[in-house]
């Protein structure tokens, strides 16, 4: 294990996180908030600590898959711990475990909070919460790769471990260029959303926060009622962008390259939009009687489905009071999640497609045992390794899901709460149903539950393996 290289990368990570903190610090300074000094102290600590770690560049820079996984999961832990410091110092969240929960929820773009009232928070703290979503959405190591020159070829392992989806590949030959492209598209989309929101008369501060939150598919709002109190126009813009950020970013690259036909042919995109619109229609008709008007029902249905499926977690309506069918549909799309290679969470549409195709193939071969079948996606044969990885992911997902649920059920909440709480954590969605519904928060749970939630959020964001590998003894053997 190349510990020196891991140390070096983590050093840079802390340095960059401190630089990111300048942003809320600036807001605090402009608004004359007390939190300015808390941010300043955090930045100082980060630059000092991180700086010490990066002074000496390691000689041997090679990293293998093992280092890639370990680096990514340790990085995210460090990222979250350091990101929690401003919450503690400003006194917004006095308890350590709560601050860590909030920070992890931010970086993993979950958007679940332990705060019952966010409107009393200072602006800089609110901005930091939204900004953590934005950093975590595309991945902080991808950002580092775009900015500093890391070791030659092996940093693909970092990207593989950090990016969402089972088969991560580069857009262009150079890692650095790929990272730059990804962030370029990410920033462009975020800015477009910001501008549109401002044009639709959202206050600038709100627009910036909402755009960050949407871009990372996070879900931290700056209002206690999330997006409910904004105008229908704004709600619709947010709906559209939640859907857009749930799309695989390579689709946008294809659009830039003018390969429209490839976009049109993309199985995953078609499946994602298909499921999304089917869910929206189903819910619209199911809740029409509650809202009376078809278009109001459609707006709420579209917003909620987009929010849950893209794993954002904003809300414009308390869907906890909707009919059982609608709630079930919402939980289903929560599990399915967004596209691979997007900023969203969940199992990912790509994996679901592969799983269904595998199921079909197995059923066919069990009836007709001599037939030879290969699984194809987008007209090309899917590598057996990818299929296996998807299957194993599913197993790991279920095991982690039920173990976590069993542990938190010791608090004796009802089954729906337990189930949707864990689903909202692993899928990085944020709100669930009943006691963790859109109007509720996670503050009521005890420390053990919160710890399990923190672990699940990290595992969910990094797609299980990097985190589970940390608990595998052979990783640490010399």
């Amino acid at each position: 294990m190349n510990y020196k290289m891991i140390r070096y990368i983590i050093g840079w990570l802390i340095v960059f996180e401190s630089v990111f903190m300048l942003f809320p610090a600036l807001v605090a300074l402009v608004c004359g908030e007390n939190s300015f000094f808390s941010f300043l102290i955090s930045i100082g600590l980060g630059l000092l600590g991180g700086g010490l770690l990066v002074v000496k560049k390691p000689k041997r820079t090679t990293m293998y898959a093992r280092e890639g996984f370990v680096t990514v999961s340790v990085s995210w832990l460090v990222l979250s711990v350091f990101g929690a410091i401003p919450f503690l110092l400003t006194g917004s969240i006095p308890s350590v475990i709560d601050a860590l929960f909030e920070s992890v929820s931010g970086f993993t773009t979950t958007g679940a909070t332990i705060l019952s009232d966010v409107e009393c928070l200072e602006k800089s703290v609110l901005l930091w919460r939204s900004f953590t979503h934005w950093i975590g959405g595309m991945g902080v190591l991808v950002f580092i790769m775009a900015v500093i020159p890391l070791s030659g070829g092996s940093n693909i392992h970092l990207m593989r471990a950090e990016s969402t989806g089972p088969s991560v590949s580069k857009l262009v030959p150079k890692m650095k260029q790929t990272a730059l492209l990804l962030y370029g598209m990410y920033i462009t989309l975020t800015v477009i959303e910001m501008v549109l929101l401002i044009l639709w008369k959202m206050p600038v501060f709100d627009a910036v926060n909402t755009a960050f939150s949407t871009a990372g598919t996070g879900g931290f709002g700056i209002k206690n009622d999330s997006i409910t109190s904004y105008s229908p126009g704004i709600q619709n813009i947010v709906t559209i962008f939640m859907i857009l950020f749930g799309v695989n970013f390579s689709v946008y690259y294809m659009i830039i390259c003018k390969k429209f036909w490839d976009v049109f042919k993309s199985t995953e995109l078609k499946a994602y939009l298909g499921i999304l619109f089917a869910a929206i229609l189903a819910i619209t008709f199911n809740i029409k009687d509650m809202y009376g008007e078809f278009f109001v029902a459609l707006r709420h249905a579209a917003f909620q489905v987009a929010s849950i499926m893209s794993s954002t977690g904003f809300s414009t309506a308390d869907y906890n009071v909707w009919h059982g069918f609608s709630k079930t549909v919402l939980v289903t799309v929560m599990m399915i999640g967004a596209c691979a290679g997007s900023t969203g969470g969940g199992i990912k549409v790509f994996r679901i497609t592969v799983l269904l195709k595998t199921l079909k193939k197995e059923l066919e071969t069990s009836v007709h045992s001599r037939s030879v079948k290969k699984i194809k996606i987008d007209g090309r044969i899917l590598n057996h390794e990818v299929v296996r990885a998807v299957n194993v992911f599913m197993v790991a997902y279920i095991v982690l899901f039920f173990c976590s649920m069993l542990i938190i059920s010791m608090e004796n909440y009802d089954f729906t709460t337990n189930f949707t709480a864990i689903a909202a954590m692993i899928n990085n969605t944020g709100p669930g149903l009943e006691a963790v519904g859109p109007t509720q928060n996670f503050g009521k749970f005890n420390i053990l539950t919160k710890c399990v939630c923190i672990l699940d959020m990290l595992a969910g964001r990094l797609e299980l393996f990097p985190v589970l590998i940390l608990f595998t003894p052979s990783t640490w053997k010399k």
Partner: protein
Amino acid sequence: MEIMIAGLGKVGQALTEQLTKEGNDITVVDLRGKIVDEMVGTNDVMGIVGNCASMATLKEAGIEAADLFIAVTGSDELNLLCCLLAKKAGNCQTIARVRNPEYSDEIRYIKEELGLAMVINPERTAAREIARILSFPSAIKVDRFAKGRIELLKFKIPVGSDLDEMRIMEISQRLHCDVLICAVERGDEVFIPRGDFILKEKDVVSIIAEPVNASIFFKKINVVTNQVKDTMIVGGGSIAYYLAKELIKMGIKVKLIDRNMERCETLCTELPKAEVVCGDASDEGMLMEEGIHRASSFVALTNLDEENILLSMMARKGKNAKVITKINRIGFHDVINELDLDTIIYPKNITAEYIIRFVRGMKNSMGSNVETLYRIIENKAEALEFIIRKHSEVVGVSLEKLKIKENIQVACIYRNGKVIIPRGSDEIKLGDSVIIVTTRTGLNSIDDIVRK
């Protein structure tokens, strides 16, 4: 530069590694998904799995944007076909590997008709390299600069030589000849020596000199410089065939040993002047009978690297023959270097080196200025030739005043047909051809040698 490499065999991998290190954007294409994955995992490249002669694959790999397409798959025909397609689809230069001897006589025609920028035959190139060494057996490696007017020679200081314990600055005084020691390999360390550097026996030394001066120098330090009289080649593959052909042309007697009767018969018809022996080279008695002890040089070219190493060690035993070992596959560079094997030939690296030279030449027209490139020591030191075409900050300043970076040496200046081994007071002028020796890789322009 955007480069596409089709085929990830030994050469393809060596090329990918080296060309990425030099900062090119590489896309590799191969049918074997596993190898592509491995390559993408270890190098900063993009990998595409597919048939490189299919338009869909080429398009997916982005052939439209590529500047150079290199086809090094196992099949000649496939290489030619995909070069043809690549050229039609994109606007790129193409390099194909064509190894079948049947095509080798028509290669010029193929190259012109298909519009290829370069056709490389690894076996033939390797054979030429071996022939060059046999023409100068004391050297481990011979390279030529400035169209042959300057030679770069690598040799090992023999035990008990005058050079042992000699300072570099004493050489010109004591031996009265104009040579420049540009790199010294000691164990696994490489030095670009300064004047006060002390040579030791068994050091592997690279010198730059005019051919005349080089032979004077070797005479003075009592090293034989005549080409070998005869050669025993074990293994009758394509390299052996090309080598025998080349050596016979040079007037060197060739004895070829191969264990396959059919192959021996073909070789015998193709090379009437060579003595072809059918026998198992692992049979010590047979080798003795064929006179392994009397031969003045021995070349091991069987398909098994391990066998080549063993044969060479045996040929090295006790006698002062020139021994050349071909190693195709295995790595273990450090271990092999310790074996005291004399010259080792790595065909894949020779091919890669030729292509890289071409790539650098191409970059030349796109901004970089490297005329030729020679690797002195595998991945550790290289010699580059620059032609000074325009004015820059290194021109017109005496070398001792230039702040040249560490581990870089201006080894030679070639001006108006004259070779200058530069001293501190010399300066670089417009129109010069300058040879730089360095342990840093990736120099792209003469301006890179000075500290900024």
